[in-house]
């Protein structure tokens, strides 16, 4: 469209491709060089220009006319004034009421023809939505009918009512309200649904079932594969109609329906069993997986512990190799009495220039029984990449002071030059 407009209005200002941009100024526009057209362009312009110009204005006029004629939509609304957006339940109850009225008016007109038995049935007493003979069989919508028929494996009877026909009341009294029809419906437990062809749902059903005449009575039954099939249709003016063919069809298809119902039950049973088996399998699988996971975790924890023990051992060996000997001279020595849980009271001298950690290491090596071996001063043990945590803490009893391993012994007055130390286990 831009192309056409550009072609039509090429002498006017150029189109800007950027939305919101300013049009170029006139002076700048005048300074553009004169256009040179090829002969082909001139011919095309001459041939296409006028028709396109005419078309453009014709379509613009049509669009304008459509927008001006919009108020005429109210004429269209003339036919939509009825409230046709009823829900399926409401539409059904409206139809049942209308049919009851129709039946009563038609039976009043033919009162002399009615038999005593027929008088005992009124439409409302048979097909009313509540407290009627066949209430439990009436479905609220066509889709619901199909679903129920396929799930429960039952026959379904559709009655499409046509309020515009001349003798629709006769149909009600001569077929639907007869004892035979009611007995048939009860005997075969057929599901029922009524539709009105002047309502959208009824018309859709009529079109999908290709109904050519109304009123229409259709019998649906389940086919294999949970498909629904129309097995009998009675349509048109049924003045001399009898229910024989309907009963024959019901009797003929009933064994098949029973078989399908059993198949359906078997399938359902198999499905339930399969589901139970599946759930049991899933449960045992879950337990197995849980046990495996626990075993794996335990194995991993054990390996980690083993590794840590190895590292501790290595560290202690290294610490033993670097543990300083007791000083010989008393000037730079600190003499402490250490009370441990396992070894009782031990008196030992330490070099005062060393950190308190030396005492900790001594106590740990003592408790591990590693002081009995002689230290090898030429040992080439490397310090392992491991931070050893002592499982105890050293304190002085009076006053109670916790000994910091980082501090230098000389700086700790409670043990230098001599003092008492008690070992307290952290665990």
């Amino acid at each position, binding site marked *: 469209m831009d192309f056409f407009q550009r072609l039509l209005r090429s002498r006017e200002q150029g189109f800007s491709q950027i939305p919101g941009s300013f049009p170029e100024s006139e002076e700048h526009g005048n300074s553009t060089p004169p256009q040179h057209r090829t002969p082909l362009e001139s011919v095309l312009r001459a041939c296409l220009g006028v028709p396109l110009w005419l078309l453009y204005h014709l379509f*613009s006029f049509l669009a304008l006319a459509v927008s001006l004629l919009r108020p005429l939509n109210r004429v269209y609304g003339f036919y939509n004034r009825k409230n046709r957006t009823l829900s399926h339940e409401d539409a059904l109850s409206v139809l049942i009421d209308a049919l009851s009225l129709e039946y009563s008016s038609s039976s009043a007109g033919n009162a002399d023809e009615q038999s005593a038995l027929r008088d005992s049935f009124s439409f409302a007493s048979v097909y009313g939505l509540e407290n009627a003979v066949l209430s439990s069989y009436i479905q609220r919508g066509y889709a619901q009918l199909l679903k129920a028929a396929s799930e429960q494996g039952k026959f379904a009877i559709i009655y499409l009512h046509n309020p515009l026909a001349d003798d629709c009341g006769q149909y009600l009294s001569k077929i639907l309200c007869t004892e035979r029809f009611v007995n048939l419906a009860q005997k075969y437990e057929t599901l029922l649904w009524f539709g009105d062809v002047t309502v*959208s749902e009824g018309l859709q059903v009529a079109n999908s079932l290709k109904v050519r005449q109304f009123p229409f009575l259709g019998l649906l039954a389940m086919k294999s594969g949970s498909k629904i099939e129309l097995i009998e*249709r009675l349509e048109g*003016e049924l003045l001399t109609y009898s229910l024989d063919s309907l009963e024959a069809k019901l009797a003929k298809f009933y064994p098949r329906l029973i078989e399908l119902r059993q198949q359906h039950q078997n399938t359902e049973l198999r499905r339930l069993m399969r589901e139970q088996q599946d759930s049991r399998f899933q449960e045992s699988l879950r337990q197995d997986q849980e046990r495996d996971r626990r075993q794996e975790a335990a194995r991993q924890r054990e390996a980690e512990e083993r590794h840590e023990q190895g590292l501790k051992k290595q560290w202690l060996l290294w610490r033993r190799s670097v543990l300083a000997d007791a000083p010989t001279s008393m000037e730079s020595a600190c003499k402490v009495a250490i009370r441990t849980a396992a070894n009782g009271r031990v008196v030992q001298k330490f070099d005062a220039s060393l950190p308190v950690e030396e005492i900790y290491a001594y106590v740990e090596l003592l408790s591990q029984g590693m002081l009995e071996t002689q230290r090898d001063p030429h040992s080439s043990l490397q310090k392992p990449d491991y931070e050893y945590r002592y499982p105890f803490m050293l304190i002085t009893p009076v006053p109670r002071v916790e000994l910091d391993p980082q501090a230098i012994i000389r700086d700790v007055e409670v043990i230098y030059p001599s003092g008492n130390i008690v070992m307290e286990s952290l665990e």
Partner: protein
Amino acid sequence: MSGEAPAGLAQFPITRLCMLTTVILPIIASIADCKYWFLVYDDPFITEYKQYYRYVMFQIAAINETDVALITLIWYNLRHLERLFGSRKYASIIVLSWFYTTATIVLMNKLFNLNPFFRWNRLTSGSLPTVLSLFHFYKEYTPQIYEFDVRLTKPFGLRSKQLKWTFNDQFMINTLVMIMLANQGMSGLATGFLSWLCGVFIDKGLLPGSEVFRVPSFISRPGHNQGQTLVTGTESDAADVSESGAQGSVTGGDEEPSDEPARPLGVQFLDTFRM
């Protein structure tokens, strides 16, 4: 499309009659060179020659071939009405519509021509008035099944707004009627409006007869509509039925297919005129 009435004209005898009449009469008139029988000009046919029979004739055949095609298609779409009313009531409504629209149009034509400035000389040709009257019945009693929007985003250049049209499943017949009205000019529009009003009045009972008047039941052939049973799906077998303990037997027509059996064109013509 699932929203459409069953295709074909089986069990729609009145629709078939109307369609065939709409098509065949103009052809015969054209061959016999008597198309002018179906024309109505107030001057000179009525005022000067007093050929009042033309009032009876003008709705029977359309002069213009486009009108023939359009009216035939509209008759086909109106077959849903025959399904709703039943053939006999449908025929009665058609006769009533034909009568009332003809009377209304003639009356309005005479009244309009009393004014000295404009003259409504030419009446429409073809069954446009009857069809428009029936169109009201169609719209009144056919619920909408689905609708869809057509949106045109800036269809006529950057300055135009978005256009949105909503169509429903009846857009085909709506369009055909609009084209038919436009095809006959102002006369078609005015006649169409008057005929539509006639349809509304007939439906509401203001023009009496829709509940009382019925054509003689010449279309009810014995055994045609009564107890008709059609079977779809599995084949039915009368022997199986009797074996399964059914009390009665399946009525006739059990093995008939659901659609009309093919008939040669000549038989269709003869059937049409036999009625």
